């Protein structure tokens, strides 16, 4: 493929870039200290939310099982709760695994677009899994409450607490989900614009 395009502007620019390179070649530009500090700089905002989600899921699993166990709930329910929490952690990990491996700034635009598109689709589809799972678990929680708790305690504390928890948890979870989708769409739009300009 030909790499030469005859143009006065381009030829001038080639001379100018040579001047720039000559000047820069005489400069140190970047000290050892600069490079070292950069290497120690472990900043990573990408996937931070995923890490937090995984930590919450894994960290709260024993706590939830402990609390529900003390309330006398059945072993099957405790096992199901533990499995659900771990499923969420694993699910988040596998959703983000590709993004971790890709190295956001390290790939060409098409690869980034592909990975972000998959992530967005998975997060958009997540409600199809999360809502039935959460509602089943919640219904089971209410049944376990009826079986194992006093009626007064159940009606006055457990039931309102469970509903408030469900609503708050649902809102927070959905907000986080939408945020990831928005971020993914932002990246996809930017990539799209860039590729259109390049087309």
């Amino acid at each position, binding site marked *: 493929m030909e790499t030469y395009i005859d143009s006065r502007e381009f030829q001038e620019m080639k001379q100018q870039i040579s001047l720039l390179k000559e000047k*820069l070649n005489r400069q140190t*530009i970047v000290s050892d200290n*600069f490079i*070292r500090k950069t290497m120690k*700089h472990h900043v990573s905002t990408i996937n931070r939310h995923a890490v937090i989600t995984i930590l919450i899921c894994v960290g709260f699993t024993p706590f939830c099982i402990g609390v529900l166990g003390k309330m006398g709930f059945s072993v099957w329910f405790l096992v199901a709760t533990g499995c659900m929490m771990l499923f969420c952690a694993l699910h988040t990990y596998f959703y983000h695994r590709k993004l971790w491996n890709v190295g956001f700034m390290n790939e*060409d635009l098409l690869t980034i677009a592909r990975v972000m598109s998959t992530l967005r689709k998975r997060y958009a589809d997540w409600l199809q899994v999360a809502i039935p799972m959460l509602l089943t678990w919640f219904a089971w929680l209410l049944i376990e409450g009826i079986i194992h708790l006093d009626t007064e305690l159940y009606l006055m504390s457990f039931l309102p607490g469970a509903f408030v928890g469900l609503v708050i948890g649902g809102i927070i979870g959905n907000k986080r989900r939408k945020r990831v989708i928005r971020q993914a769409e932002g990246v996809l739009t930017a990539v799209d614009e860039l*590729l259109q300009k390049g087309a």
Partner: protein
Amino acid sequence: MNSLEHEFTEIVRENKTNIYAVCYMFSKDADEVADLFQDILINLWKGFGSFRHASSAKTWVYRVSLNTCIDAERKKQRWRGNVLPLTMDIDLFEDTDTDSRQIQLLRQRIAQLAPFDRAIVLLWLENMSYEEIGAIVGITAKHVSVRLVRIKEQLKRMSNK
């Protein structure tokens, strides 16, 4: 310094002028250059573990540098944290000698282009082939060729104004 860090330092040293040139073309002042330079180094280091030498180090450095600058351009508002100063005794934004003025003219020309076009021109000025440019920016060699013709026309129009 372990071997990985040593290898990274060498790559940065060998490509420091390329990184600076990219930052310079995407910045308005020396502070912004230093800021972008630091961001690029962070991204290079973050991606260094997955850099498998499938492409040359120069190509990889250009890819990360341009992605970082285009991403910064997209975000417009940049967070400015503690920016480490670059080690330079020239100021390519302020110096008024003949060479510096020529370099400033180049920056002004390139700055008028869209970020994506800026990236393509910079790589072309590095004498990279269309295939290499395409591999870095993620389009085909044919698209690079078409894009360069349009850029050439755009630059001509600018100089005629």
